């Protein structure tokens, strides 16, 4: 009885272990603390975006705008600090404010105008991208104040350096896991994704849950923007382009159903790590990046196929 859900959660984890074991046999550098620390650093931005994406997908939505909204947030916070001389905390807050506003826009278009999330976020993806290019004149923002990159700093555990941003990502995962599992709001997110009509009839304010989910996701994209700036030290108008689809890939690989109402947020962390481990491992093996994209594509289709087949089995 309890075996099936356990397998659903364990599957992605086993895939991650298998991928790690495979790459460990191919490169002796793979399992070093230094390399695993690099994997975590590479994963932290997409990992935080994937939390927001998980929330949206749990309500049977999808957010295609996540990466470009993050890029806009990064440009806003760096330009505010560098060119307008806004104090760093206020500049960061402005950047997160802009990404949260995009969450409000997505959420209102989905709940009030009742447009499909796919179309809404395809639109805002392009809008955020254009705004980013216009506002930055397609120029990278440099000379970013040191204090904006604090989260890119490291501390050492044993011989391994750990980035503060990675710790923040892990804390955000724990927080999201707690809210989804232990609070009424979390229950309502699952219920709205699983059977919106039933949720409405039991008195749950369905539109408010959906709007809330897009706004929280927007805030998380702002935090991801801060991590991206901290990691690279610049405001990059072309950031977020791989993260856009990588975040969805991570969520799906992590076992969350695209049909909504089923999934565990920690799975998305595992999903993000699977993508990160494949990128890193294949790079260590000297495989061209085109093959990395090819393999990511195959992984996504496998994950969605598993979801679809398990749903059919449940009927």
């Amino acid at each position: 009885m309890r075996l099936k859900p356990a397998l659903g959660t364990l599957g992605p984890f086993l895939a991650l272990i298998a991928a790690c074991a495979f790459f460990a046999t191919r490169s002796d550098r793979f399992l070093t603390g230094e390399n695993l620390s690099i994997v975590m650093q590479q994963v932290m931005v997409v990992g935080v975006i994937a939390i927001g994406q998980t929330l949206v997908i749990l309500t049977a939505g999808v957010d295609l705008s996540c990466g470009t909204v993050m890029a806009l947030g990064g440009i806003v916070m760096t330009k505010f600090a560098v060119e307008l001389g806004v104090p760093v905390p206020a500049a960061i807050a402005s950047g997160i404010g802009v990404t949260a506003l995009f969450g409000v826009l997505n959420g209102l278009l989905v709940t009030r105008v009742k447009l499909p999330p796919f179309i809404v976020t395809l639109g805002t993806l392009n809008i955020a991208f254009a705004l980013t290019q216009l506002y930055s004149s397609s120029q990278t923002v440099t000379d970013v104040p040191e204090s904006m990159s604090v989260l890119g700093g490291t501390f050492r555990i044993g011989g391994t350096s750990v980035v503060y941003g990675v710790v923040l990502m892990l804390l955000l995962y724990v927080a999201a896991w707690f809210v989804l599992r232990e609070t009424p709001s979390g229950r309502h997110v699952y219920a709205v994704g699983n059977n919106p009509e039933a949720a409405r009839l039991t008195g749950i304010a369905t539109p408010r849950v959906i709007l809330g989910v897009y706004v929280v996701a927007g805030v998380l994209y702002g935090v991801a923007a801060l991590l991206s700036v901290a990691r690279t030290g610049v405001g990059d108008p072309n950031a977020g382009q791989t993260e856009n689809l990588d975040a969805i890939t991570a969520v799906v690989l992590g076992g969350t159903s695209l049909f909504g109402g089923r999934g565990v947020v920690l799975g998305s962390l595992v999903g993000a790590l699977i993508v990160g481990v494949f990128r890193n491992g294949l790079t260590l093996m000297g495989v061209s990046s085109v093959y990395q994209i090819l393999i990511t594509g195959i992984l996504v289709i496998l994950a969605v196929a598993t979801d679809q087949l398990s749903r059919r089995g449940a009927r």
Partner: protein
Amino acid sequence: MTTAALSPTLVMEARGLVKRYGHVVALDNTDFELREREILAVIGDNGAGKSTLIKALSGALVPDAGEIRLDGRVVHFRNPMDARNAGIETVYQDLAVAPALSIANNLFLGRELRRPGMLGTVCRMLDKARMREESIAHLRELKIDIGSTSQPVETLSGGQRQAVAVARSAAFARHVVIMDEPTAALGVQQSNMVLDLIRRVRDRGLSVVLISHDMPHVFEIADRIHVARLGKRVAVLNPRTISMSDTVAVMTGALAPDAIPADARA
């Protein structure tokens, strides 16, 4: 003595309900009476106004005219939440459950219990243990036997899912449970299980309004039958003294309500 028997306590009543949609009159000055601890079947052909009546009683729509009384007091429901807060629960036809959530989660969906103290108020933590215990108690009270309350509803049969929906309404209703075609999608055995369950809900002290097309089911469990026709209540019948065919004739208009013998009325 006899007067008490002649005027049983009304839990819910409606007088002169009117609802128009443009030129269409869905409710044409209709009355409604629901007694304490009874199963009242509401029957009617398509377009007779029975679903409009039920929507007015459950708060899903606001009538243009007329008044609704609950326990003798006039009530105004602006939405289903108002009706629920007044102690009226509705079991919807399309099985309003979230299949991926557990039985316990479905029973408390939208009305989750939180932990006592700071954990509940500040951390907003769910009291899962208490919800599980109370779910078990509710199901036991209605003699619903479906194993663990932590299993997802999608693992249940159609009848068992309906039982969960009925149990949820019975658990939270204080006066009335309205059921819209509760046996429509079920096989014979599952239907019988749900009919038994409806009796137990009444025996617990609640009044049940049952909307159904299924005449054998109506005759099996209803204490009285409210017949809706052309937006009006044309008769209230006693299933023990009138035949099924006469009931259908009244419903379709083939038999004039005046032609019904007095002992077949209720």
